[in-house]
């Protein structure tokens, strides 16, 4: 294994060399897994964008397990156009994972959408344009008005009212639209993956689809809804399959595993394996009433408290859908880590992170 800390890309070998792959967000939860899985799939020349101060230990450890791995770290903040140009120079494939998961609205748009625009503006002209794999999200689908139990697949309409949704959905929807606009204009091969709830060791315990922690009381909002889990390594495999398949160019793929638990089953498993929670189950009809009340209060009080629940948000997050990963399977993806095993690994890791008794 070799690792370069250069702030500018090195010399790119000529024809016949294996592809140089750029991964943005490589030191994040999903990025770390993708590096490991790419190396396991035989890739060797990886360029990783990192921010100063970010943790590189995980990807370095992954590279150490794969002889011949060549990691190149590019210290780049994609909000800077010049950094974006340095990052994409000479690459053959781009996995764009970098995104802001939380923070002020302006920061989330800047770090996700504007950063994406800089990346796209930096793509070289002509035939040498790299293949681009964008990690989007289930949250771009407009499911509020679909009704309970409707199957979400790649034909489900996109969210028509992003401003009514949570900020993450709004940001990811705009990011995806931006990639489509550029792909259409520049003509590069774009593959969009829309994962459900990515989980695994190193990730967070709960998606908001399961519920929300309210000052120590966990509101169990998902109940009997299916939880569209995607074990992090399975999700990485899906990206790799999509990046390698010529047929995937211009296509969208939903990413979720089989044997999906309900939100209640996930919560029960967590409580059995990790720790007990103080929970309050709120059935969907009650949540709908609560959402209407919260929205009315928010309007009456002119925003004195945030509208964390509204009928629209509740319908999108806790309305309850079913999911279809058939298109991804037809492309050749197979779930390597079965869901019970993924859950076991995740809960074991979460338990290991609990504070040790004195």
């Amino acid at each position: 294994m070799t690792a370069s800390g250069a702030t500018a890309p090195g010399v790119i070998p000529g024809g016949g060399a294996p592809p140089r792959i750029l991964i943005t967000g490589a030191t994040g939860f999903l990025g770390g897994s993708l590096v490991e899985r790419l190396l396991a799939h035989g890739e060797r020349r990886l360029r990783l964008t990192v921010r100063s101060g970010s943790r590189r230990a995980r990807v370095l450890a992954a590279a150490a397990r794969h002889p011949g791995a060549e990691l190149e770290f590019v210290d780049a903040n994609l909000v800077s156009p010049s950094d974006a140009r340095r990052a994409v120079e000479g690459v053959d494939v781009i996995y764009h994972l970098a995104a802001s998961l939380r923070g002020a609205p302006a920061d989330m748009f800047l770090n996700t959408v504007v950063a994406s625009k800089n990346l796209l503006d930096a793509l070289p002209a002509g035939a040498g344009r790299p293949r681009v794999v964008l990690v989007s999200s289930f949250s771009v689908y407009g499911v509020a008005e679909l009704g309970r139990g409707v199957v979400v697949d790649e034909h489900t309409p996109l969210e028509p009212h992003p401003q009514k949704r949570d900020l993450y959905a709004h940001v990811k929807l705009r990011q995806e639209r931006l990639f489509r606009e550029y792909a259409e204009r520049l003509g590069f091969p774009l593959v969009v993956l829309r994962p459900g709830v990515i989980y695994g060791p190193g990730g967070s315990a709960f998606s908001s689809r399961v519920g929300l922690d309210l000052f120590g009381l966990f509101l169990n909002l998902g109940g009997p809804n299916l939880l569209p889990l995607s074990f992090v390594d399975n999700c990485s495999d899906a990206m790799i399959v999509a990046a390698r398949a010529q047929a995937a160019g211009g296509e969208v793929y939903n990413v979720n595993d089989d044997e999906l638990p309900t939100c209640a089953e996930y919560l029960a498993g967590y409580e059995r394996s990790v720790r007990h929670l103080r929970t309050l189950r709120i059935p969907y009809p009650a949540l709908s009433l609560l959402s209407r009340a919260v929205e009315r209060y928010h309007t009456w009080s002119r925003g004195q408290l945030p509208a964390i629940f509204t009928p629209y948000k509740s319908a999108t997050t806790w309305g309850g859908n079913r999911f279809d990963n058939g298109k991804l399977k037809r492309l050749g993806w197979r779930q390597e880590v079965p869901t019970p095993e993924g859950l076991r690994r995740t809960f074991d890791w979460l338990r290991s992170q609990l504070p040790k008794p004195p």
Partner: protein
Amino acid sequence: MEKIAHAELDGDRPPADDRSGMTLKIALVGCGKIADGHVEEIQKLPGRARVVAVCDRELLMAEQMAVRYGLPAHYDSYERMLERERPDVVHITTPPQSHLPLARLALAAGCHLYVEKPLALDHADATALVNAVAAAGKKMTIGYTYLFDPPALEMRSLIAEGAVGKVVHVESWYGYSLHGQFGSAILADPGHWVHSLPGKLFHNNVDHVLNKLTEFVADDAPALDARAWRRHPVHFGDARDQMQDELRLTLVGQETSAYGTFSSHVKPAAHFVRVYGEKNIMHVDYVSRSVTLEPGATLPSAVGRLVPPLGQALQLLRAGARNGAAFARGDFHFFSGLNRLIASFYDCILEDGPLPIATREMLRVSAWMERIFAQIAAGHAAPAAGAPAPGPGVSREVAR
């Protein structure tokens, strides 16, 4: 390349010269974090104003704001926005480096100005800005929102009633979190505009300390002593390591003295003013929105030690009850001061009344800031002999 908003393409925007009654047309430039607060509070004043457009040099940033707040137009060309929208007021919420040039363009377009703090990059720019506003015959205010928060209003009312007597000394404390929304963005990016300001982190925050002192320290140039240092661990290897995060100030005027504190490490991040009078000490707390008096013992012996805390407890109970009542009325908002300042400014435009914040106060703050940053910079070059342990940036200016 110039791009124009979606609504213009849709054609559903009212004509640019449509001035409906006394409703001010507001435009905003700079769609960063603080801009959200401006738009939200302006939208609570539908009778007085409406936001007609926002602008950012990055069109995507202007677009996201327009979509989230349902605004009719957004631009990446400031000149084009001024020309097409013909706003009555422009809110400038960009980094301070751009305040003066953006203000000049707005004044040339006949607009009044709301400028976020700090007023400009330095005192010379601040003076030029004030002069330009005066020459244009327009009005300007600055984002000193805490001066209009409920506890500040109560403080002024009580002082006017003589609650503290003649003021001897004032203390202004502003706690800051390096891990909050603003601090984390600055720490995450060595290229963040704050790192290129002369006063760096202090430059963007010390207004909050100083603007509460100007109403007590009447002098233009009080004796001023500034000490600053860095407490956060050094590990970035770039501009962020040069960012000091603790600042202590002493000001001595003819009648009144003052302390100022900016701290990034004291937790919780407190925010208060203490007014020390000849009669009482007043504690004005901006976090808990309470104003309490700390009277001395008026009863003899041990009883004199027993009664004061009960009196203070009662004051806090009353403050809590008042806040609770305001909350129940739906009148207890995070940005109360911003809303009141914006409303006062718009009223002063519509009624040609006095400014909510006098320009002299803005200039005194900018002049004091310049002296503070000069002292800190001098301290960097030559640390004062006998300086306290924490301080590469410690400096001292002899009282003038």
